[in-house]
């Protein structure tokens, strides 16, 4: 038998492969060509005043938080701080778009989102102050620990969303990641799992133009990061990350779709990191101040404040109130950070396992003995004095 004698006729040459059918129409998955904006457009008129005021107050608070935390690094109360000044709109909108039953998975720069979600300001700095690796109970406000290894929190977010859906809960998940983080394999695997499982999760990329010193054009050649969505079969959205109500709207829409079984969304918020990567970084090594100034002219607080003023939703008094609230938060934060945390070295052995292994018990005993000897030594020294 030659191969020709197999079933089939000449026609089959000009037919597509047997089970070929594009499973999703790609067109609706593609993001807009320009970042979506609301402020300064006719649509702004329809925005809820209460929401705008809420966003504004949080933005002001967020910026103050960044300033305070950076100051604390200068005073040596904080080892390091990655400021998100310029990105407040993304972080605040992220927190405000969630409902209490939802979960937030922040990346290491997302302290503002964490605080806006309800975590105590000082607890969001525990990791960076160095008393423990995470300063809050994730279950209280449904906020995962601030995640340092980039993009590794994304599969966690997907897994939690999937579990919630399996349990029939009305919980959706918002996961944050930076432009640099999108290059990691974990980003890819997480988005793919999310789309295949139709998990109720939304991915928000804060594209702030840099991964430490590496500008976006060395990070990707894509038309936009939001264009990655189509490759997973989920919608991609592109939004002006400095337009707080626009970010909020896009997030709410995506979260609602997820909540209603519509699956995940990838959102790219275009924004800018106004300050250096952290206080330890020197941004003049890799970018021009002129670029920074351009972005200062597109400041998220200024943009929102002008809207509020134009529509007479806020006056000088209102601004002052927002600033006073932020100031009070900063004062409390300062005070709490100026108090040395009380730490027990023996806690090092307490949370490694549910039950201490015999190995850890021995090691804990060793440290205990050392600490006792030290204390005795100091006591004697004290007596001797």
């Amino acid at each position: 038998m030659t191969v020709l004698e197999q079933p089939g006729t000449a026609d089959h040459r000009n037919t597509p492969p047997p089970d070929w059918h594009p499973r999703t129409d790609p067109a609706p998955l593609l993001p807009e060509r320009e970042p979506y904006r609301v402020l300064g457009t006719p649509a702004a008129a329809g925005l809820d005043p209460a929401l705008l005021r809420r966003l504004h107050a949080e933005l002001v608070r967020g910026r103050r938080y960044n300033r305070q935390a950076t100051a604390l690094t200068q005073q040596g109360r904080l080892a390091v701080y990655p400021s998100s000044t310029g990105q407040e709109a993304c972080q605040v909108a992220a927190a405000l778009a969630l409902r209490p039953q939802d979960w937030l998975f922040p990346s290491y720069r997302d302290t503002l989102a964490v605080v806006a979600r309800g975590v105590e300001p000082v607890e969001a700095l525990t990791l960076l102050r160095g008393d423990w690796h995470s300063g809050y109970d994730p279950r209280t406000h449904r906020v995962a620990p601030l995640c340092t290894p980039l993009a590794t929190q994304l599969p966690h977010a997907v897994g939690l969303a999937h579990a919630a859906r399996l349990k029939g809960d009305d919980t959706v998940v918002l996961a944050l990641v930076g432009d640099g983080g999108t290059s990691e394999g974990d980003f890819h695997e997480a988005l793919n799992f999310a789309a295949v499982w139709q998990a109720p999760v939304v991915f928000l990329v804060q594209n702030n133009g840099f991964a430490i010193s590496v500008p976006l054009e060395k990070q990707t050649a894509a038309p936009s990061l939001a264009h990655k969505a189509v490759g997973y079969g989920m919608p991609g959205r592109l939004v002006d990350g400095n337009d707080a109500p626009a970010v909020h709207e896009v997030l709410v829409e995506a979260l609602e779709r997820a909540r209603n079984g519509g699956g995940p969304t990838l959102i790219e918020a275009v924004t800018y990191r106004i300050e250096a990567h952290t206080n330890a970084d020197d941004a003049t090594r890799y970018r021009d101040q002129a670029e920074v100034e351009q972005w200062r002219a597109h400041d998220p607080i200024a943009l929102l404040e002008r809207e509020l003023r134009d529509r007479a939703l806020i006056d000088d008094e209102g601004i002052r109130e927002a600033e006073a609230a932020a100031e009070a938060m900063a004062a409390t934060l300062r005070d709490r950070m100026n108090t040395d945390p009380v730490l027990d070295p023996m806690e090092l052995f307490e949370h490694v396992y549910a039950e201490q292994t015999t190995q850890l018990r021995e090691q804990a005993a060793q440290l205990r003995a050392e600490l006792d000897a030290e204390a005795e030594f100091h006591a004697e020294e004290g007596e001797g004095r």
Partner: protein
Amino acid sequence: MSTATAPSAAPTGRKPATMAQALGRALRDAMAADPAVHVFGEDVGTLGGVFRITDGLAKEFGADRVTDTPLAEAGILGTAVGMAMYGLRPVVEMQFDAFAYPALEQLISHVARMRNRTRGALPLPITIRVPYGGGIGGVEHHSDSSEAYYLHTPGLHVVTPATVADAYGLLRASIASDDPVVFLEPKRLYWSKAEWSADAPQQVPPLGRAAVRRTGRSATLITYGPSLPVCLEAAELAVEEGWDLEVVDLRSLVPFDDETVCASVRRTGRAVVVHESSGFGGAGAEIAARVTERCFHHLEAPVLRVAGFDIPYPPPMLERHHLPGADRVLDAVARLQWEGN
């Protein structure tokens, strides 16, 4: 720790069962006992896994609890973290030892640390099943022994059964543990058989206890997983040479059962550690070092190690030269400085 309950009642009766069957039964019973247990990984659903360990589970428990995932090991373990955070008890399968490597970052940076990071708020009761080891004529990347990477990572339990009964009991205990467990399945023992009843109430041993598989007075062989049969064979052969060897099966590398191991070595005064992974920086190094620290004055000879060579795992046609066999174990026993005796 949630309690592992006995499997559902069914006609009892001991008959030969393979380790693969015992593992499958453990998964089934764990799923039946606790709705939080979810099994997922590559090909574990419809196919029942490439070793058929999960055979039948998808049918019994449905695709929501037994799930074929996309092909991405970091994604599998990473999503398991999120599922565990939400109260589930994921059991994931890595298809082969070397294909667990893409998940090492998730394992080291998150699975092992989440409980500690969150001061106990987020324990991760995840069981990571990894078929491991050689001796099956596998092509490259299908025969690695990767336990040394795991046991050096604080926050993980590392467990490996060597008998059919332990395959069941230790897997149940691992799934019941509120901590992450790397559960290493010696793939060349998958088809090993023993009289074992899948239907009698099973004993679920505590994790972290070694078992003395053979008592003896001359020297102690310390081993685990795929090397247990090798040591038992060596012990039988040793009788002819006049050596009465004790054989300790560790069962759990973390936590480590210092008590059982040291009691044996103090009694015999001599020890050889046997495993098939590369020797340099392998589990045997830790075992030899800690036994020496604890039993120095009872030792008549240094604790010796019989392990795989420090080479990439060999191609199938050469693997027998790499794998420790009974002869190599006996050569080591012979070097335990018997002159004085």
